């Protein structure tokens, strides 16, 4: 009896490891810095991580389908640079620019999925290749320039507030995340994505079109990456070819921390989102307590290893 109780507590701890870590970090930084627990700072953390959360959702979908996409950062870069260049040099309507960003990223995602399928290679290697291609495209578009002077309507997406208080981009994030969470956990499509990643051969023999599901996952993830690119560029008000790059690693980190299986088939969106904010609070807090850049790297790495240890230990218990 005692044993099963212990097991249950262990399971609960591993289930809630991310929220617990988040609360612990918030308490820690609140004590360490008087500037941390203020409405201004908390809003800041939220607003700064909106695009990371949307992007991590994309990373999670791809990982659940059994893939891994290293090119996401440069997908964002291509979309952000193109949209900002068009907005600052032509009279293109804002709505059209936003749709363009989303369409481009979903096309790039779809391209990744099809390439992985045709080349019969692991998606991580394929996207290592496409990453270089997208990087080249991004610099060709940007001509190594930064594009400013965005129209007001575009800036409103990233900086505007509804009812004078609620940031619009946070609302967009909530809508996107809730929709993605619903599709993944409550629909037959989501179910198929989990199945394709968990055991592709069993999926195929159970009558699922596994290849199509995987390409679809990449494409849908591309849509999210496009949204993420718009959120980032509109908040910054500018874009160059480094916009968004490296974000795939933050996304993969958040996914792995929250227990998304590298081999596919496992993962829960709300945990990923909490993990994104764990990372967000961590870097914000460390800046507030004036930890140097290099110690910050070390602290991040240590926290990641410790939480991996905790979640694995509890999963085994």
């Amino acid at each position, binding site marked *: 009896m005692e044993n099963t109780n212990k097991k249950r507590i262990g399971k609960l701890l591993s289930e809630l490891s991310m929220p617990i870590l988040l609360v612990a970090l918030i308490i820690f930084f609140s004590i360490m810095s008087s500037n941390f627990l203020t409405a201004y700072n908390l809003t800041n953390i939220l607003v700064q991580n909106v695009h990371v959360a949307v992007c991590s959702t994309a990373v999670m979908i791809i990982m659940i389908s059994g893939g891994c996409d290293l090119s996401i950062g440069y997908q964002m870069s291509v979309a952000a640079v193109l949209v900002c260049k068009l907005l600052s040099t032509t009279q293109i309507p804002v709505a059209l620019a936003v749709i363009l960003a989303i369409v481009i990223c979903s096309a790039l995602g779809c391209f990744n999925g099809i390439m992985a399928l045709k080349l019969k290679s692991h998606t991580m290697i394929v996207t290592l290749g496409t990453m270089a291609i997208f990087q080249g495209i991004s610099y060709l578009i940007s001509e190594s320039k930064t594009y400013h002077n965005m129209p007001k309507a575009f800036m409103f997406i990233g900086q505007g507030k509804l009812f004078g208080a609620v940031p619009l981009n946070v609302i967009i994030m909530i809508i996107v995340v809730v929709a993605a969470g619903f599709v993944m956990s409550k629909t037959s*499509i989501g*179910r198929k994505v989990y199945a394709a990643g968990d*055991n592709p051969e*069993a999926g195929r*023999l159970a*009558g699922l079109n596994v290849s199509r599901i995987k390409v679809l996952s990449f494409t849908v993830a591309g849509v999210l990456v496009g949204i993420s690119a718009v959120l980032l560029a509109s908040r910054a008000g500018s874009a160059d070819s480094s916009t968004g790059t490296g974000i795939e690693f933050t996304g993969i980190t958040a996914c792995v921390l929250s227990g998304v299986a590298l081999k596919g088939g496992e993962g829960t969106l709300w945990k990923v989102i909490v993990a994104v904010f764990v990372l967000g609070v961590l870097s914000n807090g460390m800046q507030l307590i004036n930890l140097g850049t290099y110690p910050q790297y070390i602290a991040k790495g240590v926290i990641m290893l410790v939480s991996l240890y905790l979640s694995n230990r509890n999963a085994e218990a």
Partner: protein
Amino acid sequence: MRNITKEYPGVKALNDVSISFEKGEVHALVGENGAGKSTFIKSITGAIRPTSGTIVFEGKEYPHLEPNQAIELGIAAVYQELVQFEAMSIADNIFMSEKSAGVMLNDKERCKRAAELLKIFDCDLDPRTLIRDLSIANRQIIELAKATVKKAKVVIMDEPTAAITVAEQEKLYKLVHKLKEDGVTVIYISHRLEELFEICDRVSILRDGQYVKTVGIEETSKNELIAYMVGRELTSTYPEKKPCTGEVLLEAEDLSGNGVEHISFKLHRGEILGFAGLVGAGRTELMHVIYGAAKKTAGSLRIRGEEQRFASPNDGMKAGVGLIPEDRKFQGCFIDKAIDWNIAISDLSELSDGIVMNSRKEDALAEEYKKKLRIKTPNLKQKVSGLSGGNQQKVVIAKSLAANPDILIFDEPTRGIDVGARHEIYVLMNELAEQGKGILMVSSDMEELLGMSERIIVLHEGKQTGELTRSEFDQKKILSYASGLTPEA
């Protein structure tokens, strides 16, 4: 003379078990799945530590063994799922644990020695062959050769014949005899009771973690062993089945594809049609063509009189074919997912309103099949990996039935399933046939084929070599067809 004694008072997995193994004997360990056989051998090889008890090896007492300690003592194990370096050569694998004289490896000499070793085992493979290119039987030989290099005194073999052909089995039996003559103790674990009578000296039976008995092989019979294993008498392994009288469900004519050629047969409603053959004869490949998992290249496949062209398993399912694949873990189910999740996966469109899953329908479906197939579990949200082999197989069957097929393909329906649970699978298959479904059964278990099928089709190297009706059933005949010979009249 050596005695290995082990005790585990108070622990369920293995409760106070003491067995002694003598030098130079072949000692079988039998019991149903979960009886504690694996736990027992793992504590001998040092893979786990017993909670209490001692291991006595050549007169010396050990509270437990570390894996490298066990290796040094000369205990070697050939596991059911072989742990080998797949991308390395035979020679590399054999000498992996050998301490070399210097940093440099003398490849030429190692290959020569490996070849000599293999010759002892009647095996003329090139030592440079990569492990992944070998058959399972040959991989086992490599493991045995490895044990010889290490001068093993005890060799543990876990279900060595589960995945190899009849001819290969004979070879393996010879090797076991050879080991025995060299004074090696062989601990032999098997679900196939018949073979114990061919090669073993004594048998120890475990049941629910308890030691039941050790008997000399001459003093016992198969039925007695089964009775000890399950703790009761089994009336008959193969249940009675009504003969079929139904219409033709499926007709293959000159069917070719996926490595099989010119296969013709008819399957009737209510019939169980067996497929015999050696591993690699193309039985599974043929089933994949019938299911749509592989392409048909020539000939015709008619279901209920209609010509079929399957591009994917999905087409096969739509036409009413269901497959219970041979490899449960990798093809049959999603082992880390819940029972209800598995059952629902082939029937997602029926279980959802639009694209939104209807969890009430999903629960009802899982509950229905839990009752119908008598799946033993307290909770349908339980992961499949936590179930016994028999219940896992029932989940796979439920998953196929959920798509409502007319034709069911059972590929090795009872592989790795213990005696008691096998009977239940057989009863289930008969029930399905009596409900009017047609069943194609691929099996490497001769008794199962003879006991369950109405007719048997024999394949050899992708070609159909024989067809037998119930009155013609004869093990020898089937074997000679399977080996590509024409049986004597």
